[in-house]
């Protein structure tokens, strides 16, 4: 092990910023991060062992205790649940002979849940040793179980298990364009860098991750900051449940995304770029490396790009299972080899980002749009959309519809149009922008998708009338409690309290005051949390409570006070110790 760790550290130039990459390799090799590795790495990277320990404990894909040689994770997104995930994971557990969350006694396999793996259009999905598996059915599960029990190496498994489809159903302005291989770089230098920035400004392009900050301003501020180095980062940490459009863009339009990054780098004056790819998209890693290699060969990356006297290169960095790293300052912390904890702002990343240098972090789709704008001009893009939301938006549609997949529309499109096109009927409501977005009811489908009405990062989850609102809220509340980074009190404690409060109501232990308490807790988390995660974590409750108060009310007991837990169940230990099970050893939940 000592040699393995030494070589690994050496390959990574003993850089502490590469800690995630190093730990990914250790985890893959030993199925956990041994204590000895922590000690050795602390010494070789000159960082405290506690930093390494923190990183391991922070990211879901690192472990201090061994996982199985085959570590299987099943996506726990609401869309997976709607397709019978509970039954299938139980089937999986039974066939494998392992409990969910545990490692089989022989150490061969472990099984657990994971947050949405970005395959909602081909659910039930999961990961095996980090590689995406899709369309799980009982027969495919049987095949996996057989492979595991034969200890068949992953590269000998049927490729079909790992098949990931693009499912582009409706292309628009951007998806109709072919991948760009140097044309936008040439256009940028021919037009002039600042002139191209003006085109991006004219296009009205706003951040496609959901926040909607004007892209040209971000680049402008970054450019204007006095510094010896600046960085361009592509945020491909697509963790918002129900979003998978970046996966498709990277699979089929990677050239355009890298071209967009290169144009941005030329404008702001960066020579180094990173693409922070969520760990769940490991299956794209080699493909993207190959695209980068081709671009280096074609002089679209590297030194003196296309004879313009401009140097730039891109490095792919993989995440390790943490939704919070989609927040730009948390992403930067992660790139620096640390836990993904959002920074205090100001300073903003455009002033002090990666290694405290000016940094522009933009979404995958933003770079795709920017490359096309650099090539075709601002007007080309601004001709579509609304006055405040120019251009088109790429949506990931999933849930109860006939054709889940990727749809591109100009901004201003109504929700109803999307529903009609994807073949959704008997719709109860739609979750727009993922759990951190808005739940809208079926009397609101005339509303428009645009920053000024329904803002979205691209997640569009459809629920039909057979679905229960509270099941959805329950899933989302558990998601946020699991993903809270824990930095600030309102989010760390609040999201866990919210999870408990939702559970209490869903499980039928709620009483009169509990809705008021629920709402009060939501406001506290929303108003006082440090970053966007906490500020939006209560949205599932708040947006459904506003629309369906009766759904919550109906769950409440008709008494003034109800204990927040099951009284009788709590006495079980006492009964066992006293060796009693008579009627007097039981307690009614409420006095009738």
């Amino acid at each position: 092990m000592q040699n393995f760790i030494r070589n690994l550290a050496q390959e990574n130039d003993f850089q502490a910023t590469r800690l995630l990459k190093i730990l990914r390799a250790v985890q893959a090799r030993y199925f956990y991060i041994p204590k000895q590795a922590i000690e050795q790495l602390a010494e070789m990277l000159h960082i405290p062992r506690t930093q390494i320990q923190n990183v391991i404990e922070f990211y879901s894909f690192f472990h201090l205790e061994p996982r199985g040689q085959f570590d299987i994770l099943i996506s726990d997104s609401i869309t997976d649940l709607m397709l019978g995930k509970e039954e299938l994971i139980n089937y999986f557990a039974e066939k494998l002979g392992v409990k969910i969350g545990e490692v089989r006694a022989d150490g061969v396999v472990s099984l657990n849940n994971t947050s949405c793996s970005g395959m909602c259009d081909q659910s039930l999905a999961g990961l095996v040793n980090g590689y995406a598996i899709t369309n799980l059915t009982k027969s495919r599960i049987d095949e996996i179980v057989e492979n595991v029990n034969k200890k068949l190496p992953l590269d000998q498994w049927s490729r079909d298990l790992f098949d990931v489809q693009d499912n582009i159903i409706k292309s628009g302005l951007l998806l109709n364009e072919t991948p760009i291989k140097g044309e936008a770089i040439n256009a940028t230098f021919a037009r002039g860098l600042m002139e191209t920035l003006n085109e991006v400004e004219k296009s009205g392009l706003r951040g496609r991750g959901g926040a909607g900050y004007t892209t040209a301003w971000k680049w402008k501020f970054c450019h204007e900051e006095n510094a010896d180095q600046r960085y361009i980062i592509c945020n491909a940490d697509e963790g918002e449940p129900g979003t998978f459009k970046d996966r498709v863009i990277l699979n089929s339009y990677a050239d355009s995304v890298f071209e967009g990054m290169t144009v941005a780098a030329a404008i702001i004056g960066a020579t180094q770029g990173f693409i922070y790819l969520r760990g769940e998209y490991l299956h794209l890693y080699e493909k993207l490396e190959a695209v980068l290699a081709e671009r280096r060969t074609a002089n679209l990356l590297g030194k003196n790009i296309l004879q313009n006297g401009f140097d730039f290169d891109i490095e792919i960095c993989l995440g390790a299972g943490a939704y919070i790293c989609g927040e730009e300052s948390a992403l930067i912390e992660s790139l620096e080899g640390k836990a993904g904890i959002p920074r205090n702002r100001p300073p903003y990343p455009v002033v002090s980002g990666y290694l405290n240098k000016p940094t522009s972090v933009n979404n995958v789709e933003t770079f795709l749009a920017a490359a096309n704008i650099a090539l075709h001009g601002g007007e080309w893009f601004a001709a579509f959309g609304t006055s405040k939301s120019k251009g088109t938006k790429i949506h990931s549609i999933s849930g109860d519809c006939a054709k889940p997949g990727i749809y591109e529309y100009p901004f201003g499109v109504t929700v109803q149009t999307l529903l009609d096109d994807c073949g959704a009927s008997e719709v109860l409501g739609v979750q727009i922008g993922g759990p951190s977005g808005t739940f809208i009811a079926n009397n609101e489908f005339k509303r428009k998708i645009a920053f000024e009405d329904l803002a979205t990062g691209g997640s569009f989850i459809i629920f039909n009338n057979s679905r229960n609102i509270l099941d959805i809220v329950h899933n989302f509340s558990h998601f946020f409690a699991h993903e809270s980074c824990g930095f600030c009190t309102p989010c760390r404690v609040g999201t866990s309290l919210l999870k408990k409060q939702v559970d209490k109501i869903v499980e039928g232990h709620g009483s009169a005051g509990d809705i008021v308490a629920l709402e009060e807790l939501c406001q506290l988390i929303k108003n006082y949390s440090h970053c966007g995660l906490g500020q939006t974590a209560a949205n599932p409750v708040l947006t459904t409570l506003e629309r369906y108060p009766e759904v919550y009310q109906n769950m409440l007991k008709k008494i003034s006070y109800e204990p927040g837990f099951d009284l009788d169940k709590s006495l079980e230990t006492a009964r066992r110790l006293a060796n009693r099970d008579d009627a007097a050893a039981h307690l009614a939940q409420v006095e009738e």
Partner: protein
Amino acid sequence: MNNKSIVIDGKTIPFEDGQTIMQAAIAAGVYIPHLCHNPQFTPHGSCKLCTVKVNGRNCSACTFPASEGQNITNVTKELNDDREKITQMLFVEGNHFCPSCEKTGNCNLQAVAYHLGMTDNHFPHFFENREVDASHPDVMIDHNRCIFCTLCVRASQEVDGKNVFAISGRGIDKRLVVNSESGLLKDSGLDATDCAAHICPTGAILIKRTGYKVPIGQRIYDHAHIDTVTLANEGASHDE
């Protein structure tokens, strides 16, 4: 000196460039409740008790820079009610039993709770199983009382130059860890004279055999409110 100023609760307060709202407030004798802030160390901004409204928007006073034109509200029923709830969150997250804690009367968490008029814990308790590390000859850690303010982490890094403490883990599973191979305090470089050993705002890090040297009834907050004590201590520290 310059004549730049901000307004807190209607009172005009001077500030210098580079100062946070908290620094300006303390220098001017205005108390903003806080637990994770101490002027000796880099601001952290995690407890969120110091949240104030800056031109209507919630900001952490300890990290947000003061700037011309800020109209700030600090003491309002709304803010103090919410600060009380945030304090209650800290109480239910850990296991805090003031009457049996040797820090009682000297504890900032307890004193802030009194200041905010907290009379119950409001939220359901977590009752987490947390451990005690009594391995060190002179210092002990009672994890039940840790509120993850990172004061000990920063004190050890910034004052003691040692890096003895860190916060590890994610979300509600966060915990204070010790930088030693065994993970125990006795194997770390901590000395009882270190700043980090004395900075804990609660009873999580205690110096052994000193707990009751000052009897209950004669302790800091037995006689003074936390606002007066803080302004006296931190105002003085700021002047240095």
